[in-house]
């Protein structure tokens, strides 16, 4: 039965519903710039059951039937993959683009030093007895060695920098994975109480998005409402309420650079290779383009030094000496790996430039052949000979430059494409879930006007009460 008291109490309930709508709009507005926030809507519905009066059903006001989020599951299911892809390619591109050691126009490059080396040999070939020109050859040889060392050091330093980022990122991954596992539990508890924990869902989505950027994880929903996360290699990072732990350890087979490890809850850490996102991009760059560049420099240094030394040992110094190397690539037992880091002028030749083997002939009846530069002519022939991977030194260097460029360029193109796809999807998600200030202002107005009207109903009911009480 609809009496004045019922109207008053219904008004109070309806006021509460409008207040909830007002609070929801306010919450939306306050989170208009919060990343990962999905706008919420207070769902109002007519309260049931309706009163019956004189055989007619009379409504009993409005109640808050729920607060929902505007989410597009179709879009959100695609987003982690795109976030991971974009982060991976852009990180790889960023790392590879930061390497300037092989910039073609850079001064003091290996290319310049190589040109200087050949030029010094060429100048000496015209006057092999000239002490100044011999010293110049020694200096140019040393400069070439230093250029190799500097260039390799710069690339290797970048690889070491990647290790530092890996170590730092694993801490963030572990923190976020633990956070997702914890949020899974809180969301379970929230739903058990009958309410949809919207803001916890937002927090979990935000953590999942960041994890997707860092590692390329794929989220999989469970029947309990949890989100489990699987790394690109298939290993689980978060399984319901349990989170695995990502770590790093040195890899002796990769010059001591870090390899990622994964330890399940209570398990032991195992080396792990399936990784995407930023971490995958860092590994791609470190063990892809950068490692190939270092290996190429080592191969070139090793090949060039070997070819030069072979001829140099056969030639004769100013005093007829033979069997001296012009280059050193470190101890005899050392191999091609690290050759560019050890390349330098041989100590004996550096100490005594007369040992530069310019000649092929020895002293005879026709005097001492101090002007014999025939071995230098042989050495200069190496300028056109294959010394590394079937290529001349200049061609090998050009290929190294080109290969690094291709790696950087490919990563950049992939990054542009992945970033465009990610931005497009994020825009679509923002369109579906983002907060429009205009809409929320209108919601505020609607709630305010309804609140005012309900207040008027209460005032009117109160006035009717007064009228009723004044009846005598």
């Amino acid at each position, binding site marked *: 039965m609809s009496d004045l008291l019922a109207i008053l109490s219904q008004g109070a309930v309806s006021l509460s519903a409008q207040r909830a709508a007002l609070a929801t709009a306010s919450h939306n507005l306050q989170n208009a710039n919060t990343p990962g926030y999905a706008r919420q809507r207070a769902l109002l519905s007519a309260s049931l059951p309706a009163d019956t009066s004189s055989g007619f059903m009379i409504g009993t006001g409005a109640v808050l039937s729920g607060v929902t989020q505007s989410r597009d599951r179709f879009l959100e299911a695609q987003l982690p993959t795109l976030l991971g892809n974009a982060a991976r390619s852009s990180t790889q591109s960023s790392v590879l683009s930061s390497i300037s050691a092989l910039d073609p126009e850079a001064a003091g490059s290996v290319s310049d030093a190589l040109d200087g080396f050949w030029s010094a040999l060429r100048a000496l*070939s015209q006057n092999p007895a000239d002490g100044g020109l011999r010293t110049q050859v020694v200096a140019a040889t040393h400069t070439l060695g230093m250029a190799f060392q500097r260039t390799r050091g710069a690339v290797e330093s970048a690889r070491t920098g990647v290790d530092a980022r890996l170590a730092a990122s694993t801490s963030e991954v572990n923190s976020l994975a633990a956070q997702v596992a914890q949020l899974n539990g809180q969301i379970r508890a929230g739903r058990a109480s009958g309410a949809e924990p919207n803001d916890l869902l937002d927090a979990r989505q935000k953590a999942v998005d960041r994890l997707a950027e860092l590692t390329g994880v794929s989220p999989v929903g469970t029947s309990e409402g949890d989100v489990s996360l699987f790394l690109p290699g298939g290993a689980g990072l978060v399984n319901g309420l349990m989170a695995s732990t990502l770590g790093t350890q040195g890899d002796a087979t990769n010059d001591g650079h870090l390899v990622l490890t994964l330890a399940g809850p209570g398990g032991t850490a195992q080396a792990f290779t399936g990784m995407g996102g930023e971490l995958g991009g860092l590994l791609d760059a470190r063990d892809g383009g950068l490692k190939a560049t270092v290996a190429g420099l080592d191969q070139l240094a090793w090949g060039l030094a070997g070819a030069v030394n072979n001829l140099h040992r056969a030639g004769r110094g100013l005093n007829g000496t033979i069997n001296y190397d012009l280059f050193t690539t470190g101890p005899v037992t050392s191999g091609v790996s690290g050759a560019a880091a050890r390349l330098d002028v041989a100590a004996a030749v550096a100490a005594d430039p007369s040992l530069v083997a310019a000649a092929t002939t020895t002293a005879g009846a026709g005097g*001492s052949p101090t*002007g014999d530069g025939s071995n230098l002519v042989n050495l200069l022939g190496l300028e056109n000979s294959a010394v590394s991977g079937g290529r001349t030194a200049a061609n090998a260097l050009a290929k190294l430059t080109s290969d690094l460029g291709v790696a950087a360029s490919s990563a950049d193109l992939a990054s542009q494409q992945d970033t465009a796809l990610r931005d497009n999807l994020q825009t679509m998600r923002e369109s579906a879930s983002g907060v429009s200030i205009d809409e929320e202002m209108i919601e505020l107005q609607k709630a305010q006007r309804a609140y005012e009207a309900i207040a008027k109903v209460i005032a009117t009911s109160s006035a009717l009460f007064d009228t009723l009480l004044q009846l005598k």
Partner: protein
Amino acid sequence: MRVTDRMLYDRATNDGNAARSRLERAAGVASTGAKLIHPGDDPAGAAQVTLFKAGAARAQAVAEAAGRASDELAVADAALGDVTNLLARAREVAIQFSSSGYDAAARATAATEVQSLMDGMVAALNTKVGNRYLFAGTADTTAPFLATGAFAANGAVRKVEVAPGVWQDASLRADQAVAGVGGGVDVLATLATLRNALAANDQAGTAATLGAIATFRPAAR
């Protein structure tokens, strides 16, 4: 499409960043004058730049070497010019004293002149550039011709790269050019013969040297 405020701000931010990135790139190109800064800008172009720079450096070094060799050849040419002039005078002396109108004293005086011509020729053939003898083959520090006219150096020939990979002789084999090795005329020995014939008042011997003197052709000239 539903457009939120954040979409507008994000678009403005992203587009602004992209524009600034392009501006930075253009400023880099304008300030350095280099369009190709990183190999990733144009991998194939970067490889070409590396090769072109190597080629340019090589061409410059080759040009400098060829220039130096050319300078030395010019000095050698001048020395051989002196030899030719001296030989021309020797030929005049030989022709003059091949006739019967001269006595022993006159021929002895001529022998003295021929000796001085020989000395001048040895000096010209012992020309040095810097610290090395031009006509000594590879024996840079050995005077190629003794005062007697004997050749004391070796017959090696230095090479110079005149174009990438193309090597050419950059010196003269003095033993062949003036010392008679390989069938040519031993100029100094011929002059010694002339000198001796004049000193001995040997008219026929003097005339006999004319043939050899006439056939001499310095190779570098």
